[in-house]
């Protein structure tokens, strides 16, 4: 009588309604009957039936839900079920632990990567209509990807363009000042910024105000806005700070406001000083003086591309020759800026962890199904004893929930740990992201991931509990014919995929760790242990000439005299920090074999004692002494790389060379030292020319001190010595040289750690996957195994069949994995200096390691299979 939809609903209701509630369905049918007899149109009757049945379904479901929660009182019922679930889980501690650990690994990885992605580009920027905020740059037709700073003339040209709402906010790039406040002078990133900057961003000051136009004229620009961070750290978050005067680079400034904690530009600024540009900046010859960063707001409806075109057109009208020579305008949204080049990598990571999460779910489903299989009898018995299906579903879901909670807690711990590791790694790319923390968004994400995971892996056993038919179970001979061959093959395929992925990742881990350890084992050419480093910066415009020489001479003497110090010196740039000052040199009497048309090297001003402090061996001649000063003839020391390049025939010692960076006079090479790398242990330096700061004083210097004890213990002494020399000099970057070396390999280390983490998760998943498939199969085949054993099959035969299946899964998977790894390696044959991707060992190791994993995973199910009691099986059959 009722059509398709009605019969579907009816079927659903029949399942939902308890045995003593079927009368409700009867009521429904009776009324339908009545309608049809009264001559209701068929379609209308169907419609009515559908509506009524749907209303009933909703009521039943809500009733169930309420019942599940409160039937016996939330606390007592739930408490009992939780106790029951805990008992059930602890009966199989191993399995529960595996599930929890799998979940923790997957949730932890997903959450950590999400936190990074969130900080990188998911979290909205803290500005009103942030999608219309753009950075404006000067561009070049030849290099469309490049973006250059703006000159004041550029800014004047852009200002008032049609594509933009009102003004351009600008700030100066790379300006540092010394703040003298409290005991120690501080070095600050303190750009000068236009009054329009904050207005365009739409940022409100936390205290006071931002700049006003009167502060944008020369002479009136002594106003400063503090960053939130500086206000809290250097001014104790004093609310009375506005109106106070502070000294920056020896000049007095009025504090007019404090910026909010987030959202100020440029990132990393600690204070903003008012920007006053005098008329001289608008001389036609100053188009090339580009030192300003700019931000603007697009008109609604305009796009960055259109704005860039229109701004370039505007420039072409104003100064045609500049556009003819290739100048353009580049406009990028702040969102685009934020993602930068790390976007694809983060997306790739997200996809990878998503896959890992899916695999973890697949595995957990497998394990839970295997458990449910073993518990079918228990569940069936409960049903036979009168329990409805819903309490059983509740039990299964509570078990899943408990596992989920364990996994989530573990995952949050792992994620926290991972984020802390990423943050402490002090990576350039990470610093740009700002703080990485477990904020509410990240926690919410972890919660959603957990909840959906629990539902994903709880649904299968729950459905099973619903379907558990007491009669079949009680007969026990049912043999659960329901497992289709197809789903078994699907699970095998999943496991093979997991094994392959694990194998590929293991091979990659092998290659990467070989490369990493060979890298850090390299001799850098100096000895890092026992050395403390600290950067100083002399007040601007002071300590020139003889004064500077006397300053450094006295400072080094003072440092050398500190207790525990065996050697002291200084250098402008430390090795492995990637900072350089490259300049030309002129070979006064070049060897005939040298054909380099433009000889040069990296200039390294040092204070005497540098080579001995770092343990850089002097290969020939001598190092600098105190006697090499502004009163004596200029001398330089070169490193082995440079010596070999420019004096391949004989020794450079005693040869004349003109070093413009040092002085106008010709210098003499007095020594050759071992080469040290500039940027990375993986690449040798480009050749160094050392000269002494006693011959040319430098404003910035990194002090180095060697001790036999713990180098960081020297820090207070160094601070005191510098303060005695001149209390206005700020000290920054106090660090051991070993930490500097470690930082230089932070990138490779993070990559390796991530890879190892992924590899470990993948191996774990593969093991769990194999275990799940086998455990399930053994549970399924209990009867068959028992029968076979009753018919005389030896336990060894049973064992072999289980282990054999594990080996098949491993063989196919690992082979695919090695092939995949080789294919990937083919794309990058030479990973580093140290490691060739064709090295066989990592592949063999990965292949073999997975065999061990597969055997281990097969152990438990195999033993369980041999423990099947033939007598019991026979009785049941």
């Amino acid at each position, binding site marked *: 009588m009722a059509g398709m939809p009605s019969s579907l609903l009816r079927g659903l209701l029949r399942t939902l309604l308890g045995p003593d509630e079927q009368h409700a369905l009867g009521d429904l049918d009776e009324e339908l009957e009545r309608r049809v007899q009264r001559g209701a149109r068929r379609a209308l009757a169907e419609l009515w039936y559908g509506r*009524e049945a749907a209303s*009933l379904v909703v009521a039943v479901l*809500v009733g169930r839900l309420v019942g599940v929660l409160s039937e016996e009182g939330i606390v007592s019922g739930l408490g009992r079920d939780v106790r029951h679930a805990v008992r059930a889980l602890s009966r199989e501690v191993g399995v529960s632990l595996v599930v929890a650990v799998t979940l923790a690994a997957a949730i932890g990885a997903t959450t950590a990567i999400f936190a990074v992605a969130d900080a990188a580009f998911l979290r909205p920027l803290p500005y009103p209509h942030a999608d219309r905020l753009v950075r404006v740059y000067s561009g070049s037709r030849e290099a469309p990807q490049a973006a250059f700073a703006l000159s004041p003339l550029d800014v004047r040209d852009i200002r008032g363009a049609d594509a933009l709402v009102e003004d351009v906010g600008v700030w100066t790039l790379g300006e540092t000042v010394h703040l003298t406040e409290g005991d120690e002078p501080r070095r600050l990133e303190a750009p000068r910024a236009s009054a329009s900057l904050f207005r365009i961003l739409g940022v409100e000051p936390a205290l006071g105000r931002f700049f006003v136009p009167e502060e944008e004229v020369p002479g009136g620009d002594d106003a400063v806005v503090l960053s939130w961070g500086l206000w809290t750290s250097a001014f104790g978050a004093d609310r009375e700070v506005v109106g106070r005067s502070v000294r920056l680079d020896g000049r007095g400034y009025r504090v007019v406001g404090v910026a909010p904690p987030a959202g100020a530009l440029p990132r990393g600024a600690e204070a903003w000083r008012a920007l006053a540009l005098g008329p001289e900046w608008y001389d036609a010859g100053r188009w090339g003086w580009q030192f300003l960063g700019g931000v603007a707001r697009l008109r609604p409806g305009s796009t960055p591309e259109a704005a860039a075109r229109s701004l370039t057109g505007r420039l072409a009208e104003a100064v045609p020759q500049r556009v003819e020579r290739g100048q353009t305008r580049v406009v990028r949204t702040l969102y685009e800026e934020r993602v930068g080049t790390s976007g694809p990598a983060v997306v790739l990571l997200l996809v990878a962890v998503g896959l890992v999460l899916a695999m973890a779910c697949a595995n957990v489903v497998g394990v839970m199904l295997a458990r449910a299989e073993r518990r079918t009898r228990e569940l069936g018995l409960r049903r036979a004893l009168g329990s409805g299906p819903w309490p059983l579903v509740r039990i299964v879901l509570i078990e899943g929930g408990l596992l989920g909670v364990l996994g989530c807690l573990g995952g949050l711990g792992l994620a926290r740990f991972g984020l802390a590791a990423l943050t402490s790694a002090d990576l350039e790319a990470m610093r740009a992201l700002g703080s990485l923390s477990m904020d509410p968004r990240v926690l919410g994400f972890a919660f959603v991931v957990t909840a959906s995971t629990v539902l994903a892996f709880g649904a299968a056993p729950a459905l099973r509990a619903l379907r558990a038919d007491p009669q079949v179970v009680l007969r026990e001979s049912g043999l659960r014919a329901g497992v289709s061959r197809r789903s078994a093959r699907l699970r095998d395929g999943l496991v093979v995929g997991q094994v392959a992925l694990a194998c590929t990742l293991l091979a990659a881990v092998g290659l990467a760790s070989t490369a990493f350890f060979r890298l850090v084992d390299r001799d850098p050419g100096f000895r890092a242990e026992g050395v403390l480093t600290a950067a100083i910066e002399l007040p601007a415009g002071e300590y020139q000439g003889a004064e500077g020489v006397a300053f450094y001479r006295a400072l080094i003497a003072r440092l050398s005299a500190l207790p525990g110090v065996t050697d002291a010196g200084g250098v402008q740039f430390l090795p492995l920090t990637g900072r350089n000052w490259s300049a030309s040199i002129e070979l006064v009497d070049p060897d005939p074999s040298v054909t380099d048309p433009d000889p040069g090297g990296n200039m390294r001003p040092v204070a005497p004692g540098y080579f001995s402090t770092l343990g850089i061996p002097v290969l020939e001649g001598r190092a600098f002494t105190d006697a090499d000063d502004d009163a004596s003839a200029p001398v330089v020391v070169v490193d082995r790389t440079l010596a070999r390049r420019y004096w391949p025939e004989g020794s450079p010692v005693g040869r004349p060379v003109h070093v413009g960076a040092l002085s106008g006079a010709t210098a003499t090479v007095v020594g050759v030292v071992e080469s040290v790398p500039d940027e990375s242990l993986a690449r040798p330096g480009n050749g160094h020319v050392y000269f002494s700061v006693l011959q040319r004083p430098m404003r910035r210097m990194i002090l180095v001190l060697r001790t036999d004890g713990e180098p960081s213990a020297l820090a207070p002494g160094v601070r005191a010595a510098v303060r005695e020399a001149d209390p206005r000099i700020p000290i920054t970057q106090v660090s051991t040289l070993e930490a500097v070396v470690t930082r230089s390999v932070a990138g490779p280390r993070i990559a390796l750690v991530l890879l190892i983490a992924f590899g470990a998760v993948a191996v774990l998943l593969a093991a769990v996957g194999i275990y799940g498939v086998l455990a399930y199969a053994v549970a399924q085949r209990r009867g068959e195994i028992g029968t076979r054993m009753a018919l005389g099959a030896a336990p060894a035969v049973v064992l072999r069949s289980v282990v054999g299946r594990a080996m098949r899964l491993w063989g196919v998977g690992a082979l695919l994995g090695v092939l995949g790894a080789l294919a990937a390696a083919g794309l990058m044959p030479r990973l580093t200096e140290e490691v060739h991707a064709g090295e066989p060992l990592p592949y063999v190791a990965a292949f073999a390691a997975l065999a061990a994993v597969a055997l281990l995973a097969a152990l438990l199910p195999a033993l369980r299979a041999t423990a099947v009691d033939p007598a019991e099986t026979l009785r049941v059959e």
Partner: protein
Amino acid sequence: MSAIGELESLILLAALRLGAVAYGVSIRDEIESRTGRRLTRGAIYTALRRLEAKGFLVGRLGESTPARGGRAKRFLTVTEAGLKELRSSTRDLDRMRAGLDDLLAET
């Protein structure tokens, strides 16, 4: 003590009126014919369950008949507790409306 809502009062009253023939369909019809209100099946189902859980109604299965897809009717009887509850709730209502007859009289 668990006070009953308006819907539950309506159902108890309908069951009282119907006596021995009170079951899902007849209760719904009774309420509709007297008040013009058509309750949804879900609401009836939920209210009946709640009333039974509170002990204000008891159910007993009738004979199976082929007419209803083979499903028996479940006849409902108001218990002593149900009657008491009904008395107290209608009494409360009466006391509250005392003296307001003019205002509440239907025109």
